[in-house]
């Protein structure tokens, strides 16, 4: 299994190479120059030239790319044009926020969607199924930004129940270990902070989760229905197992594989697609950082973030593989324990 994971991780190399190459070409060929955007309006041409030289923007494209690759091998992503800071550190300071948001959103969506999906599948063709369907579609058809705006309007500006955005207010002492606030608070034994952290998380998580409920409940419903048609389910009925036992022991475990697949894919999509929610809620995550760094053509930062996304994406896939491995003895056998 370790080998299988190693193999999977090794598979990331060509992908990373392609990603960086495409990215580099895109950013370098696109109009709009980082140097133009770094200096103030009234800067002279000489000033712009100086900046270009400083960041090596005057060197040939290939040379720039190769030095980037070389640095990447040393795990050095360079320095951000815009922030002047080490890209790796900048990203490290933002990644946990995005991961916390995406993971909780996925968790929330799963907790709602999977039971709904199961319910719809078990009551296939009834009004319950229809209601779940409509609820799911409502989630799918509401633009994320719109939902976010309305939620803030309602819960913050009017009802004053929840904060409108941001992660933690200033002055809250939370020693950062993982960067995931809920986890950090628990590690530090600051259970008093959990409510505060949760209050900050609730709206963005709800917004992000709502759109996923539809997809996940559909997939769950489909997976359960597929499994329910398998012969071994009939066998279990023939054995005289109770309905609950069949659902718990046979239906759900066998539906786990397709559901896990979609959850993994969704988490990947979430991590790279949470930009809008991060913008709406001023969430200091990777998405906003990417959005801003693109708009100022901060190439090292953009590249660094995309490399991070790609790596996270592959990691998620590895985790999914591990889950398959745990669930499914057939996969265990084919990959060698």
């Amino acid at each position, binding site marked *: 299994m370790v080998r299988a994971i190693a193999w999977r991780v090794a598979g990331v190399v060509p992908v990373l190479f392609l990603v960086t190459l495409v990215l580099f070409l895109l950013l370098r060929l*696109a*109009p*709009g*120059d980082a140097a*133009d*955007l*770094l*200096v*103030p*309006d*009234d*800067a*002279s041409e000489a*000033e712009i030239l100086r*900046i270009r030289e*400083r960041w090596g923007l005057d060197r040939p494209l290939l040379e720039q790319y190769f030095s980037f690759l070389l640095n990447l091998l040393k795990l050095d992503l360079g320095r951000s044009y*815009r*922030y*002047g*800071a080490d890209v790796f*550190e*900048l990203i490290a*300071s933002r990644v946990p926020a995005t991961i916390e948001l995406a993971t909780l959103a996925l968790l929330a969506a799963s907790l709602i969607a999977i039971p709904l999906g199961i319910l719809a599948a078990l009551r296939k063709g009834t009004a319950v199924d229809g209601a779940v369907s409509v609820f799911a579609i409502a989630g799918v058809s509401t633009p994320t930004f719109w939902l976010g*705006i309305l939620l*803030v*309007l309602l819960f*913050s*500006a*009017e009802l*004053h*129940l*929840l*904060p*409108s*955005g*941001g992660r*933690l*207010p*200033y*002055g*809250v*002492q939370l020693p950062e270990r993982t960067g995931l606030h809920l986890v950090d608070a628990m590690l530090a034994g600051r259970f008093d902070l959990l*409510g*505060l952290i949760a*209050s*900050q998380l609730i709206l963005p998580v709800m917004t992000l989760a709502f759109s996923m409920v539809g997809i996940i409940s559909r997939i769950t419903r489909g997976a359960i229905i597929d499994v329910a048609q398998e012969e071994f389910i009939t066998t279990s009925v023939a054995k005289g197992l109770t309905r609950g036992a069949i659902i718990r022991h046979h239906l759900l475990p066998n539906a786990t594989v397709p559901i896990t697949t979609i959850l993994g894919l969704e988490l990947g999509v979430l991590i790279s697609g949470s930009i809008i929610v991060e*913008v*709406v*809620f*001023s969430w*200091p995550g990777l998405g906003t*950082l990417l959005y*801003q760094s693109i*708009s*100022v*053509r901060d190439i090292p930062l953009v590249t660094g973030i995309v490399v991070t996304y790609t790596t996270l994406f592959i990691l998620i896939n590895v985790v999914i593989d591990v889950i398959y491995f745990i669930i499914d003895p057939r996969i265990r056998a084919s990959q060698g324990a």
Partner: protein
Amino acid sequence: MQLRASLPVIAALALLNAGSAAPAQTKPAPLKTMTITATEPMTTDNPYGESAAPVYSLWCHTYGCLGRYDHTKKMPVGILAEKWEAIDPTTWRFTLRKGLKRHDGGPGPTSADVVHSLKRIRTDPESVQSSFIAMVDRIVPVDDHTFDIVTKAPAVNLVMALFDRFIVTSADLYAKHGREADKKFAVGWGPYKLEEYLADRRVAMRKNPDWTESDGSSTADSPDLVILQQMREPEQRINALLNGEVQVARLVPPQLVRRLENRPDVKILKTGGIEVMFLAFNNKMEPWTDVRLRRAVAYAVNRPLIIERLLGGYAQVQEGLVGPNQFCYTGPPERANAYDPAKSKALLAEAGYPNGGPEIDFYTAVGRYVSDRQVAEVVAQMLRQVGFKVKLHTPEYANFWADVRRGRSPFYYMGRGSIFDPSDSSGQLFGTGGSPRVQYSNPKFDELLSAQYKEQDPEKRCQIWRQINQVLIDDVPSHFMWTHNLVTGLRANVDMQVDSSGEFWLPDAKMK
């Protein structure tokens, strides 16, 4: 990158309340905390690494700068400098305040620190501030607290150029720690101490107890703790203000102002701005070489209507570069480019387009200025009404700016920020050999511009400016539209002034 000083638990609790919007709790020693929204990117902790008014303002509050322009009193006032005078056309003598203590208990600012600061502006590889000191030749220390600034040419506007921008940092600390000093020893002499700097997210400052204003006025009511919280989305700024998460919401766009109206816990503060919005022509690109067409554009645009109906009245029509909020404003110009579609049509016919045309490409920045895209849409429509065949482009800002800066945009709507003293910006924008954005060349303009630099008498200088402004109005190298009003939302317990630059001086702010 983080300056996490330990904080009394009490503050954490106070903020916790603000954050969760629970009813205010009474605590033995309430800390007056003011959270202010920020939109400009706070990207680097290097005080010379960014060039934008809010960033200068931040460092002026913490490290301290030579002085600032007090928009209420309409005069420059010192911060670290207490006195300045021109001793000859190219030399200004400055005296630093004595008795200031560095936040870490170190000595007050000296001439050596000023010299060091100039050097950093010029040579720090991360510095992007060298433009505003372009006129400075050198700084000569006279004694510990006195130094002379020698300019390359006569520069009446030196003080205005340096004030609000020239950040003084400690030479000692930099000598000891180099660039690390900005991260770990971000201490200066200003009225606030920097407590936390999270790039692009949040800056926290605490009141410097040793600070006294140069005029001795009381700072007792000013906030103890000030947090600049980055919030780019206008909706969010409003929501946060209404929810009590922030006390000051800056840059409220006109369409959202109504959400603050008639709220007992919120007040609206309106300030005339100095960011001049204009329709710029590239005067060397067809068809804009023809002044008749430029004028036709100017007459076609109904500025008062746009201000009233689209901008909610939160803007002031601007004729020329020097409007009521600028330095040297001497009243309305003799001739202005008022809305007159008939005249516009006549000019078009005269220029050879009696039946509509020419086909023009019109670019606008998007999301950069107040309602920029919407304004451009209205302008395009108005131009069409007189006969222009307009194609409106809304490129992403980086591309827009790259094209504008390189002189590739023929016709565009944008703003020129913080024109208070119009000297430098007008040279750069409209002077012969200036930036290629406008490509305007008029010997008369150039001549007048260099004349005002040499004019020491403020009154006469402003008269020259009146002429310059008229040239710009008549020749329409760009058509000036308006300055937006800066609308700030304040919680009811906050009392403060926002300058026309959009900034504020925290020691003057009052909080209950």
